[in-house]
């Protein structure tokens, strides 16, 4: 079982960048996506993201997620032009009856919102598919001084999602053979009907958590405050250039707004 976004191991300049650089870049894309509002600028940023995907030689995977993201973006766009009422009317969505007017401003706004969403989602898709979670954790602990326990907790939670999905599948099978069905439209009944799945899952998670804690302790977890890592990252020249470049561009874009 794989989660929708997982690390893809490739040999590329993006993969070789320091995790911190990539995390900064994601935040940078996020910030730009929020502060810029002209569709042209946003489209340029989106193009830049696609270039990053290409440079990371994951264009095929990016294209795949782009397809599903585009569907979402289009729905958001439609909702915007339906509910945006002020401004000059460009055309009617139902032309004959002059119903549901779409305004120029609404279209503009809809495109911006859709592009914004695509930018934010895609930048994180690229971050997650080119950076391993444990490298991000290491950076958070080493560079940003986040306590290791918290970082570890976060990474472990992520790591256990597929495991739990597997458990859920097994529990579902077990209950289905006992004639169990999730049915009914009544929401309260529906919640109750999940008890046969949820309860065994909670019990198993608790015992799994306990085992994990024991296994960690037997391997000397927390014995020292300073820990070392299998792979140590170093900021390269490329990282510095990119970070400085991003900083300058953000200053420039604030002037653009």
């Amino acid at each position, binding site marked *: 079982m794989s989660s929708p976004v997982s690390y893809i191991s490739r040999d590329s300049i993006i993969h070789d960048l320091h995790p911190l650089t990539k995390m900064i870049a994601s935040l940078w894309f996020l910030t730009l996506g929020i502060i810029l509002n002209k569709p042209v600028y946003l489209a340029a940023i989106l193009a830049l993201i696609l270039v990053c995907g290409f440079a990371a030689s994951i264009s095929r995977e990016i294209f795949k997620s782009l397809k599903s993201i585009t569907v979402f973006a289009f729905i958001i766009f439609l909702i915007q032009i339906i509910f945006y009422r002020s401004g000059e009317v460009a055309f009617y969505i139902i032309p004959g009856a002059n119903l549901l007017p779409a305004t120029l401003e609404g279209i503009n706004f809809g495109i911006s919102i859709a592009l914004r969403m695509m930018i934010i989602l895609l930048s994180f898709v690229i971050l997650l598919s080119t950076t391993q979670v444990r490298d991000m954790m290491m950076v958070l602990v080493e560079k940003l001084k986040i306590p290791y326990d918290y970082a570890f907790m976060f990474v472990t939670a992520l790591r256990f999602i597929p495991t739990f999905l597997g458990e859920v599948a097994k529990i579902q099978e077990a209950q289905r*053979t006992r*004639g169990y069905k999730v049915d009914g439209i009544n929401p309260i009944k529906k919640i109750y009907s999940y008890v046969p799945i949820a309860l065994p899952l909670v019990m198993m998670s608790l015992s799994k958590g306990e085992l994990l804690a024991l296994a960690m302790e037997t391997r000397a977890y927390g014995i020292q405050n300073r820990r070392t890592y299998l792979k140590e990252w170093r900021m390269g020249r490329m990282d510095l250039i990119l970070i400085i470049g991003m900083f300058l561009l953000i200053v420039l874009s604030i002037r653009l707004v």
Partner: protein
Amino acid sequence: MNNIIVAKDLTYGYERDTVVLKDINLKINKGEMIALTGKNGSGKTTLSKHFNGLLKPTKGTILVDGIDTREETVDRIALKVGYVFQNPDHQIFNDTVYKEAAFGPENQGLEGEELRKRVVHALEAVGLLEYENIYPYSLSKGQRQRLSIASVIAMNSEAIVLDEPTTGLDHRESLEIMELLKELNSEGITIIFITHDMNLVAKYGQRMIVLSQGEIIADDSPRNIFKMKKVIERAHLRVPLITELAQELEMFRDAPLDPQEFFQGLCEMRRDYANVLTS
């Protein structure tokens, strides 16, 4: 009709290119007690999940009591074939043993006196009736395994499939489970159990099916299969030590399956020898 399960050219793959089961042809009669064996990853569990429709064949057909599993939902087929999973903790969610065993029949729509009778009978069969008001998680692993068997018995299925019912149990607990299955079998319930333990196969399996790489490579009595060196080798099995010893000695006409048979064989040999001496 005498067959509870009939598989014809059953083929199954989890994904397009990987084939887990290849052209399985199999008939299981009502009232049999069958051991399903093979090394890890040979397709035992995958095959057994076809017996009650949890998995549907990608090619070929499987009939459960005459019903094509592709045309029925699992909960309907579960009336015919119950399934006990390897880990009982995957299904326990009620706060008493009684309620846990009653979950299946409740889903079948039973109520009142009939429901009570079924559950009591099931708990009695597995020897857990005295614990009916106890919290299931406070039972031992062997008891929880028996509870999951009870919850299947309570559904009145004609056949029960058990995926490694003795894994993680001690010797005594294992024997208790197997004796229970034998008892159920004598009441007419078809039993199909997956196991790696050849001693249990020798003692309880009337028929033994050996899977290797998704194919049935042997389907016979344990006694006959234990003689097939190649099958045993290919399936990463090991015959019971007493059988192996007898085979190495090459003194027995028919290799014994347990110490008692071994002893009987020795007695016969001594008698024969005495006869030779006196004549």
